[in-house]
């Protein structure tokens, strides 16, 4: 199977890599590959799917749906199948992936590798909770792992270190149809925002937060709740594309301020309920292809942390620091998480998670470093899918199951042939 020398980047485009990449199309291609780390569609912002100077396997063309059992909802797919394509094909037939991240371009392999969460994490747990089998190609051979096994736990959220995920079986859930009934409500400030999130009874719930609002409006935003439903809504067939890198002032503070003001006031003060196509609710950003170019050539970072429920005040202080800094972009999300996590290195914990994009500039990097320290102090955790700046020492305290994971991984890949830039940056595979 041939490799081509390629330049590539994480979704944030701040971290880049160069090296030989192979993109298998068939089972025969897959069987002919050497042991190397795998990537999906590289929707991880940082360096989780980068291997600078080393080989990389791009799984995005291994995307066939292999088997479906309507009695259970079990769908077996090749690991490169995208969540969005599965949703689009299966929802009209009454089925939906039980957990979907905020982009439909995430592949099943990537969703397992990061044990991703969706807008329903508080009720449904993480992606791995709905996986019933994972077929791995390890340096030593092929194995299938199932829930309950240590290898399964090490693979969910395992950043690809337990072997290449060739295919997996996920259990879909029944839905009445392929539209969403969405209720949007204004939250006028931080306390009201948390109260709406805490009080939500909906299956899907997420808060958009205006990270530029200060004073009494600090923490204001829109809480969106959704339920799958059956019906007919107008679909926008068109997607747009960002044709080139935007100039650096495109997301300057006054523009973000104005955008956020408008976005907040778009929802009437009394709130509203609307019917939307599934994709508009779950993957709002996917309609604009290559939107990551809006941040210009230098790229951007996303900061995402989760803190325990009791640390809500610490999160409040973090958000004030962000708001005061004037560095935030319009993409900011607040969500209440449940306890569900399927792997040793899974991100979720019961609490609140905050995710915000920042342009890749010195002041923003310094702010993110302070936010990371605050996260550690608050007993919280940073997300490997988003991180590109953390340091190894911080991460250890956040992921107490790291030693158990390391033991399993070392056994499978003693020579470290599956390591990626993220693994090396954070020393995740060494004892300290």
């Amino acid at each position, binding site marked *: 199977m041939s490799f081509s*020398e*390629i330049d590539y980047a994480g979704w944030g485009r701040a971290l880049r890599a160069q090296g030989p990449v192979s993109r298998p199309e068939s*089972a*025969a291609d897959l069987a002919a590959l050497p042991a190397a780390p795998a990537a999906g569609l590289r929707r991880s912002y940082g360096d989780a799917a980068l291997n600078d100077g080393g080989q990389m396997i791009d799984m995005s063309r291994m995307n*066939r*749906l*292999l088997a479906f059992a309507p009695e259970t909802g079990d769908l077996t797919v090749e690991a490169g199948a995208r969540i969005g394509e599965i949703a689009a*094909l299966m929802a009209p037939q009454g089925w939906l992936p039980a957990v979907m991240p905020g982009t439909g371009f995430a592949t099943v392999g990537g969703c397992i590798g990061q044990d991703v969460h969706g807008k329903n994490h508080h009720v449904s747990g993480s992606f791995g909770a709905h996986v019933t089998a994972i077929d791995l190609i390890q340096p030593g051979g092929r194995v299938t792992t199932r829930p309950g096994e240590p290898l399964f736990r090490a693979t969910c959220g395992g950043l690809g270190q337990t072997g290449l995920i060739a295919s997996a079986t996920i259990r879909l859930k029944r839905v009445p149809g392929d539209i969403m009934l969405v209720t949007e409500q204004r939250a006028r400030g931080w306390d009201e925002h948390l109260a709406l999130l805490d009080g939500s009874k909906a299956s899907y719930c997420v808060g958009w937060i205006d990270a530029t609002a200060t004073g009494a409006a600090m923490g204001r935003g829109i809480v969106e709740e959704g339920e799958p439903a059956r019906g007919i809504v107008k679909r926008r067939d068109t997607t747009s594309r960002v044709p080139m890198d935007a100039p650096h002032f495109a997301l300057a503070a006054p523009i973000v301020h104005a955008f956020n003001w408008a976005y907040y006031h778009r929802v009437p003060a009394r709130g509203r309920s609307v019917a939307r196509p599934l994709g508009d609710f779950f993957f709002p950003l996917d309609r604009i292809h290559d939107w990551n170019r809006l941040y210009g050539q230098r790229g951007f970072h996303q900061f995402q942390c989760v803190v325990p429920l009791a640390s809500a005040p610490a999160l409040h202080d973090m958000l004030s620091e962000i708001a005061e800094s004037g560095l935030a972009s319009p993409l900011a999300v607040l969500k209440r998480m449940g306890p569900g996590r399927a792997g040793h290195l899974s991100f979720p914990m019961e609490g609140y998670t905050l995710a915000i994009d920042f342009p890749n500039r010195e002041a923003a990097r310094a702010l993110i470093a302070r936010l990371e320290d605050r996260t550690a102090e608050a007993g919280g955790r940073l997300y490997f899918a988003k991180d590109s700046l953390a340091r190894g020492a911080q991460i250890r305290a956040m992921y107490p199951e790291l030693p158990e994971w390391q033991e399993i991984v070392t056994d499978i890949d003693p020579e470290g042939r599956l390591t990626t830039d993220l693994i090396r940056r954070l020393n995740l595979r060494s004892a300290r």
Partner: protein
Amino acid sequence: MTTTWIVLGATSAMARPLIRDLAAHGAVMYLAGRDMAELEKLAADCRIAGAPEAHTVKFDARDASNYAEIVHNLAATEGTLNAISFVGTMPEQSEIDASPDLIAGVVMDSMTGPATFLTRLAPVMEARGNGVIVGISSVAGDRGRLGNYVYGAAKAAFSTYLSGLRNRLGRSGVHVMTVKPGPVDTPMTFGKKMPFMTTPEAVAKDILRGIEKRRNVIYTAPIWRLVMAVITHIPEPVFKKMSF
């Protein structure tokens, strides 16, 4: 009414999004090619995506012995019958220069095989008086050039064949569309920097739109119509000195 599609070269990287789309819209699929294990996986994908039936068919462009039998089976289907061919191979021109015997195979894959099959299928479609035949040719067939002129010659032959077939079948209501892709992001081009590269997803959209509008010849990406208009008008004395 049932819509049936036979896809020659169904394992083609370029074909997959189109196959998925046809299946999701409820077409009965006949997936034809050489690698039966891969075809079985594609058939499973089609059934899950919504195809009422998906069959695999052994098809080799270099062996016409079972074409009559395939056509016989297709003749037994009901509703509209449609066919599309993605078959083709492109060895490096340098390899061909070193072993000219490769030329026969290149011509069989891009021209003789698909044309033999489609010519057998034509009367069945003519009799039904509807349906579409789509042939994937290439911009390389519009003018012979240094880098791939044998492949280009085979595609030129196929384009000419399709043009004649269109002339014949148009009379009975069967539409024939020629597709001329420029570079598409497939294993043929992976890792190479090429101008106006498009994706298999975009090719699928262009083909479906072309069918809907009953276009005769489409270029994908569409910009290649313009590029090739320019290239085919470069005077030969100049062109023969160019290398790209």
